[in-house]
């Protein structure tokens, strides 16, 4: 069964992967990091990505039509976030946990080699395998 490090190493096998992290979006804590970090500092990158994730998770405009009310107390209003710039993609995947938490997987991909569609599918599978028995 995979732990945090195995999950991040698996994410690093995605085409074009430069770095991966598991981050708590309430506190900005990086629970695990592998590879390079965008901006050169893993902790700072985690804090900044957490800020973005928190906005997406909390604002009603991004929630599903039922307002996120269906699916129980630990259901997530948002699945993932995609951000692109001139040379890279950032993919943030919220991790559904059976207990109360606020974590997401963050993968940083080089734009030339990265495949966003593939990464999105794989990351969803990894997020599920990380916590669901």
């Amino acid at each position: 069964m995979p732990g945090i490090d195995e999950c991040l190493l698996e994410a690093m096998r995605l085409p074009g992967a430069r770095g991966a992290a598991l981050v708590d979006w309430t506190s900005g804590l990086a629970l695990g990091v592998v590879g390079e970090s965008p901006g050169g500092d893993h902790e700072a990158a985690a804090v900044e990505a957490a800020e973005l994730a928190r906005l997406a998770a909390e604002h009603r405009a991004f929630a599903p039509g039922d307002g996120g009310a269906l699916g129980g107390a630990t259901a997530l209003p948002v699945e993932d976030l995609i951000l692109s710039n001139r040379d890279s993609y950032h993919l943030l995947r919220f991790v559904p946990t059976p207990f109360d938490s606020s974590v997401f997987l963050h993968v940083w991909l080089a734009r030339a080699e990265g495949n966003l569609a593939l990464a999105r599918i794989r990351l969803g599978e990894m997020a599920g395998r990380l916590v669901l028995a």
Partner: protein
Amino acid sequence: MTVIGTTPPPRLPVRDRSAAHEGAGGLSPMLTRLAAERATGVLVREHGSLHLADGEVVHAESPHAPGFDVLLTTHGTLDATTWQEALAQTGSKSGAVRLVVDRGRLTAGALELCHLGALFDAAYFALAPSSTPGRFRYGGGHQPGTVRPVTVDVMERETLRRRELLRRVWPDPLADSAPLIRVAPAAAPAVTARQSAVLTLVNGVRTATDIARELGRQAFHTLVDVRRLAAAGLVAPQPPPVRVSPPVPAVLSVSDPDITLLKRLRDALEAL
């Protein structure tokens, strides 16, 4: 030509507070020393304890933060019976948690996530400023349930960052520990789903810690929401009851310089 100069007086040994706060060791000189000597044992502080193995933090507990067993059982990730059985069978929390992972009731990832979350959560309170010096008990008292050890350096940096995060949200720390009451502002701002879960439990009696335990949520996460709600004017700490007891005799009153002196004395003793 002779230049007559006087030797400048030696500088008084002043503790450089800014430097102490920037680097590691700003929180507890004792902890920094224990990390340097790769100590194993339990550091007991006023608001919680840190378990060290080879100078790294492997476990933390605080009465202010729900333990990982509470986080796991509240939402039915583990049902309470399974947990109690595992606990009875192994005799320790860490042994029990290993057992449920081995039986496939919990993935390794979920355990790491939950344990690490609870570790940083409890450490935040354990490393809070204290009025009494910490004690360290050497010895391999820790159970073999080490999940993911965290270095003291990372732990202290994260704790300082969390303090700063809370201060930026709402600078008054009173809401962290006092019973909370609901306030109805003229124009109530929208609250998030997680905040509204906190808000419904505010009843004038529960503190942020009580709410965290009830929700099976990390206490620091609850504090973030409580401070946001306080900043939005939706909750406030219960004002202390009006004292009817006779005023405290003046002999017992302490002025700030005394406290500063005592704290410096404590810091100096801890740093020995």
